[in-house]
């Protein structure tokens, strides 16, 4: 019997494939189906502090606009007893999801202020999240802020959250750090239980007909996996936090590669959007078949098999790889033509 189980953030998971943050998990029905199809854990979609602040301010503006201006219409809306903020909806969804499935449910939060991070972390912990994924998506657009400052801010936030909650904490990183291993090591030192590689950027689309730029999130493509594999393989064994891969995991082969690079678990979202939640089951059965064919007894056995420290020639992970690839590409070009 092949053992597909794995450990992530100190939790025993029944398989190597989790569902990463996706709007699909906003339906309890979907989360149940994910569990039935073999997903070993689900990360709920992220709650964004800015979004909550915006909502709060927008509600205030919308209800205040035009009031106390004209004697016949001193207000335009009834004053309802309560307005559920986004966080309330999120927490009640978390509670309901948690009660509907037996697999671990991870909450994902994205704060904008130190206070917001800590408050959200406490609230999701209290609501019963099995673990917490800190979604640290931020974009440095201010030329006055050096990279070191961005890193310092990240570590500080994560430390505060880590010190606040008891549940395991993973940090979902962006790949854009000058020295990712150093950032990983600092986070490791700060006590995070896992690193999730990597967040994907919202890259705005340019509409040249309308002369406008519109926000857009494309589904991940399998090619994106390579970047994740690369950095997982480099980090594996050098930090004590667990590693998880998200972004570009579309097939059984991708799962296997991820584990072999050193990930404790791989996460899927775009492929589910493309092929349906049932895709999880077919990927897992293919993983199992591959493992049978290749006589792997367990996920544990293959984890890190192709990590930087486990391969006979680590040069592909280093600068030499760059030179080699370039030259081989140059050589191939005439043939392509």
């Amino acid at each position, binding site marked *: 019997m092949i053992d597909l189980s794995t450990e992530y953030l100190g939790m025993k998971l029944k398989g190597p494939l989790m569902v990463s943050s996706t709007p699909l998990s906003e339906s309890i029905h979907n989360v149940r189906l994910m569990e039935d199809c073999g997903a070993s854990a689900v990360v709920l979609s992220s709650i964004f502090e800015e979004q*909550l602040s915006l909502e709060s301010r927008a509600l205030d503006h919308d209800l205040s606009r035009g009031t*106390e201006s004209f004697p016949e219409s001193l*207000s335009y809306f009834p004053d309802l007893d309560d307005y559920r903020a986004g966080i309330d909806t999120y927490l009640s969804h978390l509670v309901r999801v948690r009660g509907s499935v037996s697999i671990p449910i991870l909450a994902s939060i994205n704060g904008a202020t130190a206070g917001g991070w800590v408050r959200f972390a406490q609230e999701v912990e209290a609501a019963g999240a099995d673990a917490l994924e800190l979604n640290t998506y931020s974009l440095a657009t201010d030329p006055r802020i050096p990279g070191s400052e961005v890193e310092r801010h990240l570590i500080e936030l994560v430390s505060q959250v880590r010190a606040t909650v008891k549940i395991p904490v993973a940090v979902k990183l962006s790949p854009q750090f000058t020295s990712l291993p150093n950032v990983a090591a600092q986070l490791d030192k700060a006590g995070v239980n896992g690193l999730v590689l990597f967040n994907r950027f919202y890259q705005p689309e340019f509409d040249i007909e309308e002369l406008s730029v519109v926000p857009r999130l494309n589904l991940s493509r399998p090619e994106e996996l390579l970047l994740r594999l690369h950095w997982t393989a480099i980090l594996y064994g050098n930090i004590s936090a667990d590693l998880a891969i998200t972004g570009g995991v579309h097939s059984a082969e991708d799962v296997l590669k991820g584990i072999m690079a050193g990930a404790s678990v791989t996460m899927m979202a775009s492929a589910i959007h493309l092929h349906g939640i049932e895709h999880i089951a077919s990927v897992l059965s293919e993983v199992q078949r591959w493992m049978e064919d290749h006589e792997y007894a367990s996920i544990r056995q293959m984890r890190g098999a192709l990590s930087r420290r486990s391969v006979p020639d680590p040069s592909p992970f280093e600068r030499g790889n760059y030179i080699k690839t370039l030259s081989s590409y140059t050589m191939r070009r005439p043939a392509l033509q």
Partner: protein
Amino acid sequence: MKSQETVILDANEAVASVAYRLSEVIAIYPITPSSPMGEWSDQWKEERKPNLWGSVPLIAELQSEGGAAGAMHGALQAGALSTTFTASQGLLLMIPNMYKIAGELTANVMHVTARALATHALSIFGDHSDVMGCRSTGYAMLCSNSVQEAADLALVAHIATLESRVPFLHFFDGFRTSHEVNKILPISDEDIRALLDEQTIVAHKQRALSPDRPILRGTAQNPDVFFQAREACNPFYLATPAIVQDVMDRFGRQTGRSYKLFDYVGAADADRVIILMGSGAGAAEEAITYLTGTGEKVGILKVRLFRPFDASAFLSALPSTVRSIAVLDRTKEPGSLGEPLYQDVITAIAEGAADGTLHFESQPRVVGGRYGLSSKEFTPAMVKGIFEELSKARAKNHFTIGIDDDVTHTSLAYDPEFSTEDPRTIRALFYGLGSDGTVGANKNSIKIIGSETDNFAQGYFVYDSKKSGSITTSHLRFGPQPITSTYLITQANFIACHQFSFLERMDVLTAAAPGAVFLLNSPYGADEIWAHLPRKTQATILDRKLQFYVIDGYTVAQTAGMGNRINTIMQTCFFAISGVLPREEAIQQIKKAIKKTYGKRGDAVVQQNFDAVDAALAHLHKVDVPGIVSATFDILPAIPAGAPPFVRDVLGTIAAGYGDSLPVSALAAGGTFPTGTAQWEKRNIAQHIPVWDEAICIQCGKCVMVCPHAVIRAKVFDAKLAASAPATFKTAKPKWRGMEQDLYSLQVSPEDCTGCQLCVEVCPVKSKSEAKHKALNMEVQAPLRSEENKNWAFFESLPSVDRSLVNANQVKDIQLLDPLFEFSGACAGCGETAYVKLLTQLFGDRLYIANATGCSSIYGGNLPTTPYTVNKQGRGPTWSNSLFEDNAEFGLGMRLAVDQQKQHAEELLKRLTPILGEELVTGTLSADQSTEAGIEQQRERVAKIKSVLEAASAGVTASDVLGLAAIADSLVRKSVWILGGDGWAYDIGFGGLDHVLASGQNINVLVLDTEVYSNTGGQMSKSTPRGAVAKFAAGGKPNSKKDLAMEAVSYGSVYVARVAMGGSDMQTVKAFQEAEAHNGPSIILAYSHCIAHGYDLIHGLDQQKAAVQSGYWPLMRYNPALREEGKNPFQLDSKAPSIPLKEYAYREARYTMLARSHPDVAKELLHEAQDDVERQWRVYSARAAMPGRGETPHIAPPEKEEDLVAVGKGREEQ
């Protein structure tokens, strides 16, 4: 009696609280100033707040006050305890049912915020015209004079009606009492129970109809018995005063607050007495306290139970020493011998004298007077003036007080400087803008001071007549004694001006008492502010030795992310300077109030307000006032000196806030005013205005089309005229064929613009090298103002384009037509006014408008100025508002009059052929007036007819000549339009509208559909969409919007269009043209985005587009004329839904607030609303797809394709 916690609220809330707890069925309909009572009831129902018996009352909104009274009558007959709230015209609509309810001796209370009736003008403000119109209905009439009394006597009325079986009209003064915030002792459930005899309720229910013990009520009676049966009620009316007094006595024992049917206050040996009822009693009592303190022998008698009038109780309440009496009525009955209370007093005294029961030492002389109409101020100074008049041997009778009647000389003189204000009372005045939150903050301050200190507190708020950039004045009093001053503050210890720009045109320091504190929100710091103050302001600060503080509130607000909401910042400064509370404690209390007010809306809002409070004090600075007046400029007049005399002297005085000083002779009897006046009232409210980039503009005209305020305009003119243009005046080469040699200009009026930004949003042009730069871009107004004013003046001097050269079916061309509706005071970015403006561009010079009461009648006809204007020939829309409920009929009447006069003119023309000549007569009678050119030619003919008639003499009767001269203008085609909102068209006026549409007459109806009663604050109408929150639909409207378009289509002969300017401006223009051209009834339903939808109106046109794209608002036209051409009259002008309803709806707070408060309900309603959209689309598209003339019976296709298959299979199986 027991000690009790006080509460701080207004009379509407206090009264609604009592009525709600004592009712089972509440029938409501919005009307100012009573609407909040219905709103509170609906809100409490949503909160599942129980009545006294643990049950949540049923709240039903009706289609009119007549409907509400009918529903209440029915509920009462079926045994429920039922109430309603109303005022003014609404109360008049209830009168027929009031006769019935009283005639049937049914226990009932209605609560009325007494308000003026529309006569020469509508007024929303307080007086007793409406309640006095009900005095013959048989309702008992009980009057409350203050917020506390309104709460107390509301209960007395509910108890007394059950005990007497006589229904009660409980009233208190609109605004002065209904909207005054005061510290009062609330009526507890325990108080109610102590007074309520449950047996009276059982009896009420036993008298009701029931099939279990059937009875018949409401019979028809004949001459034999009607009279006797009518007299049978007498014992009940005779018993009622004693019952009321008994309830008052029990109430006094329970609460310690005692009332009498007639309460006398003053010297026991008074020789002069004033008799009155309502809020004026507060001011009068204050005067009495003062005057008796100086030894004057005066007193007042407060009337509480006006009907049934207890003459005996009345007479015995007056001191025997009284020699002269003034009876004050807050109403006017033209042609009567005196107003109602006066007549009752005269009768009571005369009857007493006749019976020999008078106890007076000598029979007093009684005079009557009118005061306080439409909330006109009534002050202790006026009371003193009346007492002085009463001292005269022959005191003036039928006098007026508070105005200067220089026509029939009824008014009494008084010394306005006389003041009885308690020196221990702190009086504070705050000038703010509606949008800056000043009033809200002051209401909070009253609550803080009233509840956290031993002080009594009072707040009263005055608003100007505009909906955009409106100025609010808050009058706050705090002191150790209960505050009964029912008049505005004229001597303030504290004055805050929250808007620096007010100083330019207002003297905000008029009411500053010597040594008062003056707080100014100023962009200039303490060391530079002096140079920016007008001379008069500087002089007042020096003369009255004011302590002067400044704060840059907007910088603090913007830093805290609060935009233009400076409320908590200015509130913090007020507490810091006034010292009403220790500073730290005040800040704590402000934060507590912030948490309470904004907590529900989220932490971010609370936090930013906290930040603003914390930052406020650091920016507050005391000004070291220089010793001399140094300014070289002064406060500007509200209306410039160059305006026509009436506009400058009369409307200008009103605009400046000094309308109270105008004498009777300044105002025309009958209420007629000139149009073309808004142009003189430069309100200068925009911080940013659009600036034209002529280099990239494509001259599409969309900006001109959508501008709700007509402040952006285009002209094409002879290039030679540009020679005298100001240096910064911009032009471009016109993009019209044949006009290439001329110049095009797009110009903004900087001081009329509201800064709404719709023009920039609709501009389709983007710079090729910087996408954010459009052909119109918002820029700071201040530095542009002077130059752009010159440019605007030059632009206005340019000639208008010849209308006959313009293709009025093209949006691009329409920009060149003069709008005859400009600079309205509607909300910035209003969705209605662009349609009204378009109407005037197309047909304005021959346009009659019948306008239903509502937003459009307020921005159209509220003084001081009107946006309706005239063209260079002096022609323009003529406008009138009859009522809310009858507008369609009113407009139909106009049409009938126009047609009848035209017909008669044609008859006269024929008769006068001998002098007019065959050619002129035939030409006039057969004129083709379907085009602008044809209409112009007809005008020329009519001018010729008039000139011939003037010179005419022999061969005709003078009567025919005079007659034709008087009505010759009717020979030029006229356009009659009936305008109103959805509250009118869908609800209160629907019966009339339906009848008018069925009349076949050539009338046009424009429904400005905002989907709520916008003018009264957003109450649900039958146009409100499913799932939207509105007042009276706090839980989201559960059913779908009425499809008025299809109801009109069902006639087959009515032209019908649904338009949305943001969805298709072309289709809108086509619809207006076709509707006008249709020789029969036409109706246009115009989607009008509204501030009551809950989003920034900058996006109004985007939302209109989304409404169309989602299929929520399909664009359609039904043109009966097409049938004659063998075509389907039903045309669908928008595409099949391309976005889900949610994508449109969830951009508006009216939908999202339900999703936030009751997500499950919201989800369900949204689902059903999406179904509505799909069902409607199927019906519309099926109708549009009908072949031929569209006369195929109207059968919609099956709702789902699968059904077809299933049916087919089923048949096969059979």
